[in-house]
């Protein structure tokens, strides 16, 4: 038999076996053939077509893009952007698309677990919800009675953590609230803009208008590597309309590739460059005099104090060319005021000088008159929504502690919570008071907070630790009780309003019933409140408080859903410079912040050099893989498949000097001798010789995350030395250094750029 005949026979057999008419009949009979037939077995349309749609809000990251979930036969099959959304329309990012695989991740926490081995050992017994909550309530009460309310600490992040926060607040502790988000991330930028402009131009969101900018400055911001859909869209829109782009970064990042001018700056010297630019702008009369006169205070003080920062000095400090720096600032100045001086976001870099760096960015934006201008810093447009009384929890009578963990940080007000580092220290040392119980929700504390080794030591000292988790990550591993949390696809959260350039109101709502024994955090908090005999959280179910919140906006869940799950409002982002009033006390922009001076902190930013790498080491820098969020998506089936591990970017000259090849597997060792898991090297000219870059969040140490376990290296486990910001106590993340170990041999990083005498060298503590 010829192959041809075999094929004929086998094709026919195959068809007969499958009892399918379509191909065969049409082929033989010449009937109408459609390549788009519905699935023969189910009669359903192909792909996500014909699915039931539920509008909601994404939580694959904190950006909260409005989405539509597509459900077929009770199964979530696809997630798209909500077409009615003014910010993302039908679009979601890679992670947004992969929410399906968070819901169906086999490594989810499926039922309440109780630790039976040692902490961190990963031995569990399955228990009932009632037992789990009893145990948590019993321990909260016991620890509170024995050590006082402040001995309770809560590490929380995101919408799911809010309800339980009410419980901690009601029990009388101030050691709660957005610890990781604020104290490891946005603290410095938030404080600097709050003090300069009177509002948080950059916190969770950035109130800037890149879409209408004629030029954009990015200092260490990797838009496109960190993906927040509307942020990326505005940036791309601006560039497509012809905006010039200046990128300052030690690494040739995705935006560096799009830049008109790229400045590969020495890490830790950004403020030197910014202050030099400020001086240059003043000296060369490139700033908007009229704007400054009308709207700013402290100009003279600023002018005096930046005089010393010259281009030739900066060239040496920043390892940049005078000409490049000058071209860049001239380019930016040409387009004022329609200019985005990006405020940055993650800003807990060096501990000392972080506030100053972002203050300098704010000042530059003000000097160019960008505040309230098209393309510049925009104003918020408040969106009305109510506050549900029934969500409140009455605070138990509690004594204030004599010393607060917030005491050392004068500008932590008006932000809630205590610095994470102070909580961990108090837990370790018992000073100024003991902390004996931790609750955790929405954050992987070991992959987020510097020196996880200390964090683990602290955990060992606790009387009790519990968490609500979706996945069995490190946090779950180290907890005494693990509660199975509902994902964002299985629960309601509060009403969400966006007060940026295109304001809207929308709602997260369940797409499917919670899987396994997972429960929404509202339910959990309500049960705990009952068990702790707290007064409050009185609404029966989520719909009650949501409808209460919606009432003030003239809406209900039903009417909102009728409108497509989202309501938009006109934005008022711009202001005329003649009638500008920023929400500071005087209504003026503070070019020099006298409040800082009152606390013996510099009112005008100064350059505080970050110590240079010790001999044989490069600075460890990190950033985002565009398909991952923090350390929480590495186990996602699709995202893992797309980007299973990180790579260590090593400068090509350095690599050739120490005999490294692209793709080699190495270990990174930090200045304190802590070693990473194996990681592959990426050899490239796109990084400075004095820095090594890795994507954040990899190298999971939880064997329960079967895909992510030990894939790539964790930046956090190499960050063991950190400094706390004197303003608000954020912990630094770029104050560690690494060298390379290959085949058991230590490879010192050769010093290819010399360090000027003004920059001290990091001293390794010998222990």
């Amino acid at each position: 038999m010829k192959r041809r005949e075999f094929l004929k026979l086998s094709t026919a057999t195959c068809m007969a076996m499958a009892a399918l008419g379509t191909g065969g009949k049409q082929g033989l009979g010449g009937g109408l053939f459609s390549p788009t037939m519905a699935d023969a077995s189910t009669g359903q349309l192909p792909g996500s077509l014909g699915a039931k749609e539920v509008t909601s809000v994404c939580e694959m990251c904190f950006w909260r893009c409005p989405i539509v979930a597509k459900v077929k036969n009770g199964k979530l099959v696809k997630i798209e952007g909500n077409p009615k959304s003014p910010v993302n329309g039908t679009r979601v990012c890679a992670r947004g698309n992969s929410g399906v695989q968070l819901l169906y991740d086999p490594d989810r926490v499926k039922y309440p677990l109780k630790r039976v081995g040692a902490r961190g050992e990963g031995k569990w017994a399955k228990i009932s919800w009632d037992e789990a909550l009893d145990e948590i309530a019993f321990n909260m009460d016991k620890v509170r009675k024995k050590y006082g309310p402040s001995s309770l600490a809560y590490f929380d992040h995101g919408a799911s953590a809010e309800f339980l926060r009410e419980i901690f607040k009601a029990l009388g502790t101030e050691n709660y609230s957005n610890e990781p988000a604020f104290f490891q991330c946005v603290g410095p930028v938030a404080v600097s803009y709050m003090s300069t402009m009177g509002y948080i131009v950059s916190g969770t969101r950035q109130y800037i208008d890149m879409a209408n900018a004629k030029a954009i400055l990015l200092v260490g911001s990797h838009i496109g590597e960190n993906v927040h859909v509307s942020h990326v869209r505005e940036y791309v829109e601006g560039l497509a309309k012809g905006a010039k782009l200046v990128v300052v970064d030690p690494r040739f990042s995705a935006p560096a590739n799009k830049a008109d001018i790229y400045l590969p700056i020495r890490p830790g010297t950004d403020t030197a460059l910014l202050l030099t630019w400020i001086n240059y702008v003043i000296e060369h009369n490139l700033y908007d005099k009229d704007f400054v006169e009308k709207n700013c205070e402290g100009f003279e003080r600023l002018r005096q104090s930046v005089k010393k920062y010259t281009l030739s000095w900066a060239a040496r400090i920043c390892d940049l060319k005078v000409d490049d720096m000058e071209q860049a600032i001239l380019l930016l100045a040409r387009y004022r005021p329609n200019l985005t001086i990006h405020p940055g976001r993650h800003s807990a870099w060096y501990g000392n000088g972080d506030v100053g760096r972002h203050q300098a960015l704010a000042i530059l934006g003000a000097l160019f008159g960008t505040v309230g201008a098209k393309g510049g810093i925009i104003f918020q447009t408040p969106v009305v929504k109510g506050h549900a009384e029934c969500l409140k929890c009455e605070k138990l009578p509690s004594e204030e502690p004599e010393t607060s963990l917030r005491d050392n940080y004068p500008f932590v007000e008006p932000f809630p919570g205590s610095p994470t580092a102070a909580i961990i220290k108090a837990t370790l040392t018992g000073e100024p008071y003991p902390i004996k119980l931790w609750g955790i929700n929405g954050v992987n504390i070991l992959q987020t907070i510097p020196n996880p080794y200390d964090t683990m030591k602290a955990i060992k000292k606790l009387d009790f630790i519990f968490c609500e988790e979706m996945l069995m990550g490190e946090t779950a591993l180290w907890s005494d009780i693990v509660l199975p949390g509902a994902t964002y696809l299985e629960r309601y959260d509060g009403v969400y309003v966006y007060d940026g350039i295109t304001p809207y109101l929308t709602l997260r709502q369940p797409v499917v019933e919670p899987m396994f024994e997972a429960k929404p955090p509202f339910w959990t908090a309500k049960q705990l409140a009952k068990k702790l005999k707290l007064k409050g959280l009185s609404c029966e179910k989520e719909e009650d408080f949501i409808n209460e919140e919606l009432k003030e906006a003239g809406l209900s869940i039903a009417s909102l859903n009728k409108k497509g799950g989202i309501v938009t409002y006109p934005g008022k982002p711009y202001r005329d410079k003649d009638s500008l009033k920023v929400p500071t006390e005087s209504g003026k922009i503070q070019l020099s912040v006298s409040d800082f001076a009152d606390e013996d902190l510099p009112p005008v930013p100064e350059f505080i050099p970050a110590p240079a790498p010790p001999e044989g080491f490069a600075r460890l820098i990190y950033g985002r893989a565009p398909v991952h969020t923090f350390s929480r998506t590495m186990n996602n089936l699709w995202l893992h498949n797309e980007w299973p591990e990180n790579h260590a970017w090593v400068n090509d000259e350095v690599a050739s000097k120490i005999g490294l090849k692209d793709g080699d597997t190495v270990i990174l060792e930090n200045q304190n001798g802590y070693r990473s898991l194996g990681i592959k090297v990426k050899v490239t000219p796109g990084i400075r010789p004095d820095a090594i870059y890795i994507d954040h969040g990899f190298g999971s140490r939880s064997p329960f995350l079967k895909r992510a376990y030990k894939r790539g290296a964790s930046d956090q486990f190499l960050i063991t030395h950190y400094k706390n910001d004197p303003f608000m106590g954020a912990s630094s993340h770029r104050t560690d250094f690494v060298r390379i170990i290959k085949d058991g041999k230590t490879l010192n990083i050769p010093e290819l750029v010399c360090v000027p005498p003004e920059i001290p060298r990091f001293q390794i503590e010998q222990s």
Partner: protein
Amino acid sequence: MSQYAMVIDLNRCVGCHACALACRAEWHVPVQPGYRRNWVKRMGPEMTPEGMSYTFYPGLCNHCDHPVCVEVCPADPVDKVFKDFRTGKTKKMTVKATYKEPFTGAVLIDKERCIGCGACVEACPYHARYLDETLDEPKADKCTFCYERISRGEIPACVKTCIADARIFGDLYDSNSRVHKLVHGGAKRLQSKVVQIGPNVYWVGKPKDLNLLFKHYAPRERTWETVDNGIEDLGRRGILKAALRKGTRIKVL
């Protein structure tokens, strides 16, 4: 005459991989190594004569004018009548298990007739196809330009999710389409001296980025010429490959 085509704007693309994931979600593409209809490959940072480049290769099937994958398909041709979903016009053609759809120019696979021999997978110089061996009866699979969706008035899943609006899709022969304008304005398709089979996916971008794209991903092998689709010889590749799997058909023989 019409031919659907896609233009990908690397100036807008930020390399977020949403396209690749939306495609995987829409079409339930399994995660076995090499299984994908739509991909983003990252290139650089690397020096080019036009400067340092760090860019991306968002790729998919090119729905070529001369699809070599179709040429090598060993399945028996049969007559089929196709219908233009826009005009209702019909056309009768003799086609194998994979064919070029006459009204859109999309290269499609008739899953009912695919025997899973993998010849087309080997033939494609862009490696745009994979053989889905997770199925009881392995089948070739690849991008369809979301024919199933566009024929129902939807747009391709990757276009719909592209956060940067970097993917432009439409009929190349419609002189009002953006695709037409971009292609006539100089968008480039991935070809080389030796491989010119009329691909219908185009890229625009800075010279340095296109330089890197062509350096790393312009096809340079006439992959289809070495494919032995076994039509003349029973004992060869297709059969052996099929026999290696658990397929019952072979046992019947």
